[in-house]
C-alpha cells in the first residue's frame, strides 16, 4: 500500500518555529502549577511535581484492571477453592498447577468435600489473561490489582497456596455482590446445602 505523505507547509519547512514550539511545551510543564491528571487524589500534597516516587508511590489502576491472580477466602476466612482444576485446564501459559487432595483430603469448611492440597501459580508464566477468574465456578480466584511482581529467583515467583490465600484475603466483595443479588448467604453455597440437608427429614 502506498501512503501519501502530506506536503509540509512553508512554515513547517522553516524548521526553527516547530523546534521552538517544542521548547514551549517543555517550559509550560516546567513552570506549570497545575496538578497532573494521572495522579488523582494521591498527589494533593505534591502540587507541582510531575515525577512519581515509584515504587514508594504506585499508580491507581483503573477498575477492571487485570493484575496478578490470587486465591480469595470467603467471609469466614475459609478456603473457597474446591480444586476442580478448571483454571489449571484453561490457563493458556500453564502457569497454574493444582495438587488434588485425594480421598483422604481435608477441608476447612462445612459442606465442601474438597479443597486443594497445593495450589501454585508461576507468576513468571502468568499472562494476566483472566481466564482463571472467568472459568472459576466457585469465585475463588480473582485477578487483583497487583502489577509489579518481583522476586530474586524463579522459585520465589512460584506462589504457593498459603501465599496466594494471604495475598487474596477474604472476599468481601463477591459476598456483598451476592447479597445484593438476593442470595441471602452470599456465595456460601456448600454451607447452604449442608444446612438445607440438615433441616430435611432423615430417611436413612
Amino acid at each position, binding site marked *: 500500500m502506498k501512503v501519501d505523505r502530506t506536503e509540509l507547509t512553508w512554515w513547517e519547512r522553516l524548521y526553527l518555529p516547530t523546534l521552538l514550539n517544542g521548547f514551549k511545551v517543555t517550559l509550560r510543564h516546567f513552570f506549570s502549577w497545575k496538578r497532573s491528571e494521572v495522579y488523582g487524589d494521591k498527589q494533593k500534597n505534591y502540587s507541582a511535581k510531575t515525577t512519581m516516587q515509584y515504587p514508594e508511590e504506585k499508580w491507581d489502576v483503573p477498575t477492571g484492571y487485570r493484575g496478578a491472580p490470587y486465591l480469595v477466602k470467603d467471609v469466614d476466612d475459609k478456603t473457597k477453592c474446591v*480444586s476442580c482444576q*478448571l483454571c489449571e485446564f484453561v490457563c493458556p501459559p500453564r502457569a497454574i498447577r493444582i495438587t488434588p487432595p*485425594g*480421598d483422604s483430603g481435608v477441608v476447612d469448611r462445612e459442606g465442601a468435600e*474438597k479443597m486443594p492440597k497445593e495450589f501454585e501459580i508461576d507468576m513468571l508464566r502468568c499472562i494476566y489473561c483472566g481466564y482463571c477468574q472467568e472459568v472459576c465456578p466457585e469465585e475463588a480466584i480473582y485477578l487483583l490489582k497487583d502489577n509489579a511482581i518481583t522476586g530474586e529467583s524463579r522459585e520465589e515467583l512460584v506462589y504457593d497456596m498459603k501465599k496466594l490465600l494471604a495475598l487474596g484475603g477474604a472476599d468481601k466483595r463477591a459476598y456483598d455482590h451476592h447479597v445484593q443479588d438476593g442470595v441471602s448467604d452470599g456465595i456460601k453455597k456448600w454451607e447452604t*446445602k449442608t444446612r438445607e*440437608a440438615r433441616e430435611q427429614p432423615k*430417611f*436413612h
Partner: protein
Amino acid sequence: MQTEPAVETVTVKVDGRAVEVPRTTPNWQGNPEPTTVLQACKHAGIEIPHYCYHPKLPVAGNCRMCLVHVAMPGRPGPDGKPPMSEDGTPKVFPMQLPYEPGTPRGVIGCATGIIPGMEIYASSPETREMREAVLESLLINHPLDCSICDQAGECKLQEYSVEHGQPESRFAEVKVHKPKAVDLGPRITLDAERCVMCTRCIRFTADVAGDDALGIVNRGSYNAISTYPGQPFDNNYTLNTVDICPVGALTSDDFRFQMRVWFLKETKSLCTGCGTGCNTVIGSRENKMYRYEPRRNNAVNSDWMCDAGRLDYKWIGREDRLTKLRGPKGDITWPSALQEISGHLANAAEGSVAVVTSARQTNEELFLLKKLAKRYKALTDAVPRKGEADHLLVAGDRNPNTTGAQLTGITTKRVGSRLAAIAKGIASGKITTLIVFGEDVTQHGIDATLLGTLKLLIVSDILPNATTKKANYLLPGCAHAEKRGTFTNVKGRVQKFTKAFEAPGDAMPEWEVLHELVHAVTGLDGFNSIEGLFNQMAGEVKAFKAAGLTWASLGDKGADVKL
C-alpha cells in the same frame, strides 16, 4: 475366506431415511433378540441419549431418557393388505396418547423392538421435547456439584444437559438432599444425591457379578441405592459399577479426588494381574498413572475387569523403583554396560549359562531370551504364580504371559520344573552365569549364598529385591505401561499393549536391551522396532506362525493362536 451367513434384515425409516438393520441383535448374554429402536438408530448413525440401557446388561427401561416418537405401519385390513396412503405407499400412524389424541406418545428406544416399515423420528421436535422433559425431571434433585464431582468430564448428565438441557432450573423448591460420601464398600463411595436411579449397578452386580448386593430403598424423591444393612458391597467386581454409573453417584475410593478426568491421557493397555489379560485403558498424566479402566473386548473380558487387577498398578510409580543402571564398579552407561556384558557372554562356554525369567515379560522379550539361551544351550525357566480362579474373569494363573513363555520355549507345561536343575547346576559349579529377568530367584530355590558363587549375575528388574542386590549388572526394566509388546493369555490370545508414559531414570524396555545383546552375542539380524521384532518372532515361533500373526493384524483386540 469363509462367507458370513446372510443376516436377515428389516427396513425402517430413521428421520425420513430408509435404513436396513439386522432383524435381531445379540442381547447382553449374546442371545439374539429383536433389534430395538435405539440399536436401529445406532445403525443409522444417530445416538439416542440413554442412562439405564447398557449393551452388556439386561434392559430395564426405567430412566426414560431414550424416549422417541415413532410411527407404526397400520394393521392389515380384511383384504389382508395394510392401509395405504393416497400416493400408494403404506400408511403409518404416528403414536399418540390414547386419552389425548393429537399429543405425541413416545416409546422407550431401549426396549421397543422394530417392526418393518416403522418410522422413527429420532430428531423431531416432539422427540426433543420428550427428552428435555425427562432430563429436567432427572435434574430436579441433582445437586449440580460438578466442581467437586469425579465424574465431571465423562458424565452423561453433563453431556445431555448441554445437548438437551434447559439453561435454568424451573424448580423453585428446596432440593431433596440425600446422603453424600456414603461408604458403600471398601472400594466404593456413594453420593446418593447425584444418582439418577438407572439401576445399572444393581443389574451388574446381580446379573453379571452374581452377587445380589445392591438395591433401591425408600420411595419417590427419597429413592437411594443401598446395600443390605450391615452388608458391605465388597465382591471382586465392585469397581465396574463406577465405570457403568452414567453419573457421579458411584465413585472409586482409589480415584476419588485424585485427578480430573480431562487431564488423563488414555492409552490402550492390558491388565497384568492374571493370565486372562483383560483389555484396559490406562489413564495417565505426566508420567503418573491414575487409573485402569476396562476396554471392551468380547473375546476376553467383555466390558469388565476385576477390582484386584484394576488396583494392581501402584507398583509402577513406587518410590523405590530401580532407576539406576549399575555395573560391578557402580554406575555405568547403557552402551558400556551392554558392551561389557556381551564381552563376558562371548567367552561363556556352552552349558555355563542359565536363564530365569518371569512370565510377566512380553512375548518378544521371552523370544529374545530364548535366542540368547539357545546359543549356550542354557537351561531356561520361568516362575509359576498360582491363585484361585473365579466364575467370571480371574484366571488361576497369576502370570500374564505363561502361555507366551511356553510357546517361545522358555518353559515347559510344568512351569518352574527346571528351577531345581538350575540351582543344582550353580551349586555344582557348572553354571557360572545366571541371567535373571523380573524375578526374585532367592524366593524360588536359588538363595543368596548360591548367587554369591556365580561368576556373573545379570539381573533386570523393576523393583528392588534380594536378587537385584546381588547382581553384577543391574539393568532397570520397564513396567508394561512404559513399553510396547504383546502377551499371550491363558486361552492363547495374543494381545498387544502400548506405551503410556516414560520410564524413570535409566530404565529401558527390556526388549531393546535384549535386542542389543542378542545381536552382539549371536550376530543375528537386527531389527529396531517392536513391529519388526514381533513379525520376526511370528515367523519363527510355531504357534504364532500357524496363526499367521503380524503386528498389524493383532489390532486393538488381539488374535487367537492354537495351543
